């Protein structure tokens, strides 16, 4: 449904070349929600604009719903809905309803169909009662919902959602996530740009991590977690261990201590060395009271691959 082939974008800014998107390739199948995460300035929004034909790539191309973004841009535009996540894309003096009617009319929708579509979308997003409020008076949450409603007017097969829940209240964010979930169930293909990693974990089937224009890692969440050999191991000991023992533990990875709880947390760089770690503890005079291992969260994987960039 979406296929990127070595997509590259170089901007020229004040005689300097800025590499915004660097040979990015990936595929997203029908009905898949693909999360695009990465620090600010990683190239996520540029990538979305390339896919929506608003920017022309320097090299490479992409296919959306079978259409080439370079040669079939109008067909691509008919296949996508873009929620750009910016408030400055509506007419401030028009109400939410009037805005949706205007943009719907441009989509060549029949008057009655358009009216029904707007009504059902506003009701689904819980903003029907605010339909006559001027856009400029809408809350950020209402504006984001209208942004999502607009991109759903034509019920396109591909949705590009750029940070649809950023800076809004938890209830509005929850409502938007619910609708994204429903769209996924209906088989829509979605690229979801987000900074909210728990949102990505909840909604996305696959995730791509971008850093400095490159796609540094991508795959299903399960694969990402298993591919990263690091595990977080927390051990609680009978007594808090002496410095000499802690030094030996540091050979396995980064160590954090909580002396008051007699706990030591080891970022085990290679999960295959877990047995070796246990042997070391057993061979010492300190008894092990409890052990807990867990895979890294998406947030930790994200930081690992982006080296904490943007923090």
């Amino acid at each position: 449904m979406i296929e990127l082939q070595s997509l590259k974008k170089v901007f020229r800014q004040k005689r300097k070349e800025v590499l915004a998107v660097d040979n990015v390739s990936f595929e997203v199948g029908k009905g898949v929600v693909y999360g695009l995460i990465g620090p600010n300035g990683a190239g996520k929004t540029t990538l979305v604009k390339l896919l929506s034909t608003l920017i022309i790539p320097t090299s490479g191309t992409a296919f959306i719903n079978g259409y080439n973004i370079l040669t079939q841009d109008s067909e691509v535009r008919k296949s996508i809905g873009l929620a750009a996540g910016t408030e400055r894309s509506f007419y401030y003096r028009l109400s939410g309803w009037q805005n949706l009617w205007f943009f719907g009319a441009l989509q060549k929708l029949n008057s009655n169909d358009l009216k029904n579509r707007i009504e059902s979308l506003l009701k689904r997003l819980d903003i029907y009662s605010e339909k006559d409020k001027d856009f400029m008076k809408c809350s950020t949450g209402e504006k984001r919902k209208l942004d999502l409603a607009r991109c759903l007017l034509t019920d396109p097969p591909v949705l590009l959602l750029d940070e649809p829940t950023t800076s809004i209240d938890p209830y509005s964010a929850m409502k938007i996530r619910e609708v994204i979930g429903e769209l996924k169930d209906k088989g829509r293909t979605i690229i979801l740009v987000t900074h909210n990693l728990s949102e990505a974990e909840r909604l996305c089937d696959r995730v791509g991590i971008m850093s400095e224009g490159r796609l540094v890692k991508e795959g299903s969440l399960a694969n990402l977690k298993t591919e990263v050999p690091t595990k977080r191991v927390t051990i609680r000991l009978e007594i808090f261990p002496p410095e000499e023992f802690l030094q030996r533990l540091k050979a396995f990875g980064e160590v954090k201590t909580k002396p008051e709880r007699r706990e030591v947390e080891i970022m085990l760089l290679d999960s295959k060395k877990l047995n070796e770690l246990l042997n070391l503890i057993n061979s010492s005079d300190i008894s092990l009271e409890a052990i807990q291992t867990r895979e890294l969260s998406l947030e930790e994987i994200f930081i690992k691959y982006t080296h904490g960039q943007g923090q």
Partner: protein
Amino acid sequence: MNRVIAFIYRGWITMISYKTALVLQVLSMLVTTASFYFLAKLVGFQSNNPYLAQYGGNYMSFLIIGVIFQSFVSVSQNSFSSTIRNEQLMGTLESLLLSRTPLYQILIYSTLWTFIFTLVNIAIILAAAILVFKVSLNVNYLSALIIFILSIISLGGIGMISAGVIMVTKQGDPVSWFVTMLSAFLSGVYYPIEVLPKFLKSLALILPNTHALIALRQTLTNHYSISQVKGQILILVIFALVTIPLGIISFKLGFDRSRKEGTLSYY
């Protein structure tokens, strides 16, 4: 049809939401018309001025027609670029471009409201001129309409060139500035071109605006038929055949350059 209505509706809602500006604009029109009246009174309504003889000798009607024409010149030449500029400022340009309506249609529909509003302005000025200041016209409606439409089309080509420029420069459009300024100065809006020195008069005759304005005055005040203004019609058709393709190419180039630079949403 829905799309035409949508653009007009958007223009209407936006305009009435700025009530004070609307009232001030109508007042400005009336004050301007009154100013013209006193200016005409100074010059003399039925003067023996030889320059005005071919236009019926009435400076008030000469001036009113010039101002009406200049309003449409301004709309034709500037509305495309000002539409692009406004959408850039409001941040709505990208949303418009993502719709299923082709770009050239968006550009044309976006200017509809400005044309309608200008027509209303002109109707008010004309009504005031005829009813209050007793300006008399002798109109050949068919030939006036043809001249009027041809003027809009041929000048619209320049407007599209301007829109292509503004797509890239964001603010500051030398094409529009140059043509609008030349039009006001040389094409005979406020005075007949016969008062100009010889070299400026030659320059004025290169402008399509000059020919359009001469023909419009003759059809509105002297009841000239199509055959009597066929020379001007031919000039306007030739001009349209040159400027419209140039405008389309220029706009497409500006649009693609903006997409290449990733600056569609910049302002």
